[in-house]
């Protein structure tokens, strides 16, 4: 049995909030660098260069990459052999979010109630997904999610007869509808299978997967490659102002589903696809 102190979790989450909002993961950086070289539109190239420059300024001057520092989404894998002491894990995480967003000069973008809409002023509560796993580690993935792109996400409850062609159409529809609103070049997270909520959760989780960490199933890998190519033929381009870089990556997660269904969730993310992992 391993003991982990709640304050330790708070400290880690605080740091993660600040780091995630100032630095992108290396796979994101290398896709962006590559996009600058292959972009066909001059204006598109100019915008991609500005995005690179933006990342440099964010780093050097400690200004968040984007002013929408997001709602904090966390995926927490709890090894069943650990014990958390000194408080409730959910409270510890929310305290970390509060400290990170306050001390890190991040924007507080959360309202307490979806209709009454009063800002909580500390960016809590976070959206936390727990999963119990074997072992004695606590794995925390933090993914601050901006809502320009979140608002353009869609879910499709397809029929089994729609098959893989139906899935492709659904993904293309979501990307086309998103267009300039989602700050392209986008990262497209897709969840196929499960139930209504499982598909959405997989789509979100797919956004946090390293681009070089490829799915084990061949048809899924092929679908990721085909969709990335087809999305980049849509012409939307950087900023939605035309070009050949509409998406930097398509990540697809899958799960078993019901004999009567084929759920497909498309979680759109912008080029500020923030995620950071810590293992305690």
């Amino acid at each position, binding site marked *: 049995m391993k003991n982990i102190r709640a304050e330790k979790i708070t400290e880690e989450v605080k740091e993660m909030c600040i780091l995630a909002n100032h630095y992108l993961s290396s796979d994101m950086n290398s896709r962006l660098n590559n996009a600058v070289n292959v972009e*066909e539109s001059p204006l598109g190239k100019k915008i991609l260069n500005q995005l690179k420059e933006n990342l440099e300024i964010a780093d050097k001057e400690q200004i968040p*990459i984007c002013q929408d520092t997001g709602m904090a989404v966390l995926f927490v894998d709890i090894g069943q052999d650990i014990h958390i002491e000194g408080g409730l894990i959910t409270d510890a995480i929310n305290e970390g979010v509060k400290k990170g967003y306050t001390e890190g000069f991040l*924007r507080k973008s959360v309202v307490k109630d979806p209709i009454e809409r009063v800002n909580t002023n500390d960016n809590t509560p976070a959206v936390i997904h727990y999963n119990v796993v074997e072992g004695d580690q606590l794995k925390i993935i933090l993914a601050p999610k901006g809502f320009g792109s979140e608002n353009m996400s869609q879910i499709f409850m397809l029929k089994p007869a729609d098959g893989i062609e139906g899935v492709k159409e659904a993904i293309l529809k979501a990307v086309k509808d998103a267009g300039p609103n989602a700050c392209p070049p986008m990262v497209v997270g897709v969840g196929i299978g499960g139930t209504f909520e499982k598909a959405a959760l997989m789509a979100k989780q797919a956004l946090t997967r390293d681009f070089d960490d490829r799915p084990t199933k061949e048809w899924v890998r092929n679908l990721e490659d085909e969709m990335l190519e087809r999305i980049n033929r849509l012409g939307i381009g950087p900023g*939605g102002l035309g070009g050949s870089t509409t998406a930097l990556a398509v990540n697809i997660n899958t799960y078993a589903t019901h004999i009567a269904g084929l759920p497909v969730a498309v979680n759109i993310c912008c080029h500020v696809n923030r995620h950071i992992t810590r293992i305690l």
Partner: protein
Amino acid sequence: MEHKIKLPLTSEAIEGFKSGDYVFLTGELYVARDAAHKRMNEALDQGNNLPIPIKNQTIYYMGPSPARQGRAIGSAGPTTASRMDKYAPRLLDLGLKGMVGKGKRSKEVIDAIVRNKAVYFAAVGGAGALLSKCIKESEVICYDDLGAEAIRKLYVEDFPVIVVIDSKGNNLYETAILKYKKD
């Protein structure tokens, strides 16, 4: 084409803008997003005056991150303009001339842009750190309680934007995509 423009916008400047042009703005820029628009709309409904002089002005749809000490503002890129579509035609009819944001606009907004000879610019979404460097001063002028959504007045220098919808109603989001579409 590139233009260097002093704010407030003049009719001549607006007439010279074509969808796709690159523009550097210098001068005073007002900032308002969702909650501030809702309140301005309610003020008008109740027959009250707007808290800002709207005539000939430009509104930037933005909600910044907090400024570190010694800086005018934090990260400060555009937010999605379509959420302001419900309110924009009324403000345009009252004399608003420019809007800066990102993303598509409704037909009602485009009609109001043409009717009032106004312009919709896009700033690069997700480039808030870069754009903040062009913001030299920032002051909250009302609706302070809205935090990041308060109305601000900025002083910007060579703030880079792209003309998306010009005063004739040409829309870059529609025309540019066709140029690079391959299927």
